[in-house]
Each structure stands twice: as C-alpha cells, then as structure tokens.
C-alpha cells in the first residue's frame, strides 16, 4: 500500500480496533488507552519516512511504538492496573457475557508473558512474522511459547473443572 492520506485512513480503520483492544486489555483504563493510541499513531506518522519494511509490516511497527509508550507510562506511574469490571469498564460491563468473563479470569491466571502472547496473537491479531519482530525472538521460539501458553490455559481450565 503506497502512503497517502486515504490509505493512512485505511490503515487506521484496519489497525485501530486491534491496537485499542490490545491497549485497553493490557492497561485496563480507557483514558490511558486513548492517550497511548493517539500518541502511538502520531509518532508512527511522524517517523513514517524512516520506516523500513524489512523490520516487519506497519502493524508490527505501530504495535512496537505502542508497547514502548505503555512501558513509559508504567515507568511514570510505577504500576500496572489490574482489571476490575466494576471500576474500569462500566460501559463495557453491559456486553460481558459468561464466556468473556470466563476468559478474562483465565487470562488473569496466566503468567505475564503468556498473557502478552495471547493478547498479541488474538486481540492484536498479529501474524507470527510481526510478533517475532515485536518480541525480538525467532519464529520457532515464538510458536513454542504460544503452544505452551495455550497449554497452560488448558491446564487451568481442567483444574477449574475439577474444582
């Protein structure tokens, strides 16, 4: 896709739901997610002349910027907010069904690294290639890690069923 205003608009429409969903699921705060989304896009657009595709697609690039922004935010605030439906997601709460709640609980029980992989893979809907660029690991390692994360999730489900 050659860069022009219309096509940046298309990029926005394509990437923003995933990026915003990812940011919110990680930060658990709408206003912070809004800020980081905006900042990430602005930085991406400003730095677009320096963008080199060999370092991954545009998605990988903007997600890397967003992750960096999140790290800066956490460094400033010195904490990562836990998800709480009552506090953070009043508007979203109406849409929550049983299954969503179940998965959120499951995600919460996963290790931090597994959580991040699941978010990038299923909310951000990134390809393995883009994920390797973001996480700076090779594709084989990435596949193994995702497989393990899913395995952990399965074992948590099994444990819950027996309980």
């Amino acid at each position, binding site marked *: 896709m050659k860069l022009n205003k219309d096509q940046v608009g298309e990029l926005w429409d394509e990437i923003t739901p995933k990026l915003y969903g990812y940011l919110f699921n990680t930060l658990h705060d709408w206003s912070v997610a809004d800020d980081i989304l905006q900042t990430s896009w602005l930085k991406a657009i400003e730095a677009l002349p320096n963008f080199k595709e060999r370092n991954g697609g545009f998605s990988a690039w903007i997600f890397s910027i967003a992750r960096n922004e999140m790290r800066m935010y956490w460094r400033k605030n010195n904490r990562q907010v836990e998800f709480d439906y009552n506090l953070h997601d009043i508007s979203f709460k109406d849409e929550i069904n049983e299954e969503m709640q179940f998965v959120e609980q499951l995600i919460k029980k996963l290790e931090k690294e597994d959580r991040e992989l699941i978010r990038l893979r299923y*909310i951000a809907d990134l390809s393995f290639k883009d994920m390797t660029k973001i996480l700076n690991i090779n594709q084989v390692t990435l596949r193994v890690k995702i497989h393990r994360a899913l395995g952990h999730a399965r074992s948590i489900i099994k444990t819950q069923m027996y309980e």
Partner: protein
Amino acid sequence: MSKYKNISEVFKKWGERNQKVPENNLSLKNEILEKVTFVREEIEIKKEKRSLPWVSIGFASIAILFMLGSSIFTSESGTFNKNNTVIEYRTPSSSFDLNDILYEDKKQIIPTWNVDGTPINDSREFLKTNYNATLLTRKIENKKTQIEIIVRGLGGRIDSSNGNKKYSNIVFAIPVDKFEIFRMEIKNLGWEKLFSENISSLNLLPEKQSIEESQKWVVNEFTTLKSERNQIVKNHTSVISGLSLRLRSIDQEISILQYELQTANADRRYQIESRLSQLSSEKNNILNEQANENKNYQIKLNSIDIRIKNTQNELKNLGLKDQKLMDNVATINGNISLRWVSLWEMGELYIPGPMVVWLLFIAAIISYFFWHRNSYISI
C-alpha cells in the same frame, strides 16, 4: 465445558470481541490524518530522491561492460579447451619439421623420417597414435589411481606417474586393440565438460617403405656378393688347375729327360741339361704364380666373405627395425594430465559467458527488487 475444548477458538472469539474503537474514533482519526499531509511531502521528497534504481543500473552496467570486454579480449590460449576431442592425422613429408610435432606443452616427439614425397599408389597405413588428455577434477588422487587401474587392466603399462594435490601427470602405453575401450573408460571418469582429449596419428608409411627399400637393396647386394664369391672360387679353381697341369707336364718332361741323361752322349747331355735348367726355372715360375694365386684368392675370398657377413647383419638389423616399427604402431603412447578445478572454474565451464557477468546481473535484479520493495509499505 465442551465449548472450551478448542482453546484457540475461544481465544479467537475473545480477541475479536476485545477489538474496539475508541469512543472519539472519528476525531482521533481526523487529527492523525491532518498530520499526514505534512509528513507525506517529506516522504515524497525522499522517494523522489531515489526515483531510479541506481544500484541495479550500476550492477547491470558493470555486467554489460564485462560482457563486452570479455568478448573482445577473450583468447583461446590459457583457457580450458572445450572441444574435448581433437584427432589429427599427419603424414610426414620432405618438409617435415620437428617443431611441427611438438604438441603444446607436452614436448612429445613423434619419429620423423625424411624421405621424398610418398607416392599415392601405396595406400597402406601404419598409424602411430599418440593420446593426450586433460581431466579437471576435485579428487586428483582418486582419479589418478583409477586411471592407473584402467591402464594396467587393459594390458598397458605406466611409464611415469607424478603429481601433487593440485596437479598430476601419468605417462602410459597401451595396446592399440584396447585403445577404444580405454578411451571410453577414461571418458566415464568425469563430466564431459571437464574432459578434453587430443589424439594425434602419424602414418609411418615412409619409414616402412624405406625399410622395405633397404631390405630389397640388401638382398640384391647379398645375391650379387654370393655370385661374385662363386665366380672368384671358380676362377681360382680354373687357374690353379691350369697351373697344376703345366707343372705335371714339366715334371713329366723332367723325368723323361733325366732318364735319357743316363745314356746320352756329350752333345745330347749338354742339350738335356740346358733343357732341364729351363724347365726348372719354368717350374719355379709356375710355383710362384700358384702361390700368388692362392694368396690373392684368399684375400679376395676374405673380403667378399666380410661383405657378405655385413650384408647379412644389415638384413637382420632391417628385420629388427621393421619389427620395431610394427610394435610401435601396435602401441599407443599416451599422457593424461589431471588438474584440480575450483567451483568457480566449474561454474565458468557450465555457464555460457563469464560467470562474473551473471553474478552482476543477479545482483542487479536483487537490488532492483529491494529498491522496488522499499517503495511500498504494507500493513
């Protein structure tokens, strides 16, 4: 709980439901797009700056220059001969020069025979064949051993064998009737393009004719000498028998005269004694003549015997020479050089034109694709 069996599906659904746009999506989007106008100009300037794939053009230009250069300056010498079989037939002539038969760097000498032009009415062929081959290989020792086994296996012999890890040379001889099998075996040792052979044949007819002419001459000479000898013996016998006859006649006359002397008167006695003295002198002369004849006869006989013996020896030598020539014709002398070949050289042999040109073209194409790819941005 069956709905949780496929965990990937569950996460996928969960992920899709989590994908949301912010409440102020439109305003945020517009804000971002307003920034794009400014940034876009910068990008376009950058793109304009590299509007041509200069690297590709550079590589392609160098490749073309190399190609033109190589087509102008390429010379046959110093490169591997791709015509992998060369067969030469030579017939020596009066203007035959030794330099003509020194093949390349092999310094191999084919026997020369200086005779006047060979007439066409003799169509016999006595071909002396010399075989030279060069084999490019990456396994010198292995190929060298294989060649030695082939030569010995076909009843030939190795005359010399030397070399190192990069080069090897084998000089050998094999029977002419095994030559074609030998060639096939050697050809099967390596790839066709890595093999080159040079077969030169020289008709030794002039040498053969010369030997035959010499033999004819020597046989004639021998016959002449034999008849000469017989004539000498015959002459001698005739002379000796004539002299003996005269001697016998003198002896008879002397006996008669001596018998008559006993009863003869003084006058007759004087006559007899005078005659006896004459006969004695004549007898001595005949004896001297006989001795001289024997002496001369012996000298002549010895001389002619020596000449006959020499002729016989010469005939024997010519027979040996003829046999040697036939053995020579029945033997193929050969030389195989093995030379280590690098992968680059192998590439040069198999790829038409200089390999560096191809590499430069490939580099040009790759760099073009990189240039082209960098002109686009994907999601």
